[in-house]
């Protein structure tokens, strides 16, 4: 469920953000996230930015593995 897309915020104006996912841009709702700024990364689902994220899955998984072992 819930195809999510990590995308970069390129523009912000009240309640909406324009995000860029690998060259595809579209306007999404930013109403669930208070403090977005251009350059931030967000997780987008069905036209809504649902979470502010880091774009770095590499470092995160590396750290998890380190903790695990």
């Amino acid at each position, binding site marked *: *469920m*819930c*195809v*999510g897309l990590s995308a970069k915020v390129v523009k912000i104006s009240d309640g909406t953000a324009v995000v860029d996912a690998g060259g595809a841009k*579209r306007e*999404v*709702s930013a*109403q*669930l*996230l*208070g403090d977005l700024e251009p350059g931030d990364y967000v*997780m987008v*689902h*069905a*036209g*809504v930015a*649902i*979470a502010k*994220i*880091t774009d*770095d*899955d*590499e470092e*995160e*998984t590396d750290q*998890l*593995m*380190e903790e*695990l*072992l």
Partner: protein
Amino acid sequence: MEEKKKTAREIIEGYQGPPVRIMEVCGTHTHEIFRLGIRKLLPPQVELISGPGCPVCVTPVGFIDEAVYLALEKKATICTFGDLVRVPGTKKSLADARAEGAKIRIVYSPADAEKYAAEHPEEQVVFLSVGFETTTPAGCLSVKKAKEDGISNYSLLVANKTMPQAYQALKGSADVFLYPGHVNAITGTKLCEQLAEDGVSGVVAGFTAKELLTALAVALVRFQEGKPFFVNCYPRVVKEEGSPEAQKLMEELMEPCDSEWRGLGVIPGSGLVLKKEWENFDARKKYAVPPIQGKPNPACRCGDVLQGKCKPSDCKVFGKVCTPQHPVGACMVSNEGACSAYFMYGN
């Protein structure tokens, strides 16, 4: 210290612990696991079960029948995610209805459906609101916008569901839950921790190859330790508290109701419905949709598949009568359905 060099993939491939059943609750996980060929890495004692986390798969036949009714009888313009278009109803899918002249529009977001309604005041626009906690906020936002805009030709046919009750219902089906990362992004992880305390283990997983392999490796290592556990393997997206804004929004517009899950039956309190103050946006009330009891094809074992009680290939019609081109059950039509994944990727 030499263990430190083992990669997630090596851990998975080399797993020698006790047999373990891991349920990917999330359909996107199912799909990605197949796409990446991850099942082929698993030793025999690791079983992956595809759970009920595809909203299309668990949406009952009657919901499609309601949508077809609105489209053909009430001449409503149906806006929907593409996923639902080919799902068989009792007699017709939305694609069939479209071929008979119904207006079916595929949208990326409920916001687009609301916008379309605003731009086409002469049409009655209904958005098919399916999905779990991740998707529900988008539908809610569209309704709030419609109210603000004073739009009266927009409404939702709601079949949104919530996960917590489902976990309870599925407790015995798996040893470890691979939790759906994007649902947890909204709901947070408290429930998962609670479940671990109740003896149900789980990990929250992301969606990239590395994230999936890591989450599986974590699950296997911790499972061998023998104690119930919970690990958030997707912290860059999932926070303990989830999204308070989204939770508030859903509470403002929606309230729980009993809900039918295809194959699992009615799970009390597992569905959502628009609150009385918002009933003008409830398509069932607005168009007085009569109660429709959908009739799923009796040959279909989707329900058992979703509970891990059987594999798609155990269904008699799998791959013969039931194919993605002519799906009999929802698990075959959705890209996320276990039957579809088994068929497409040859398990």
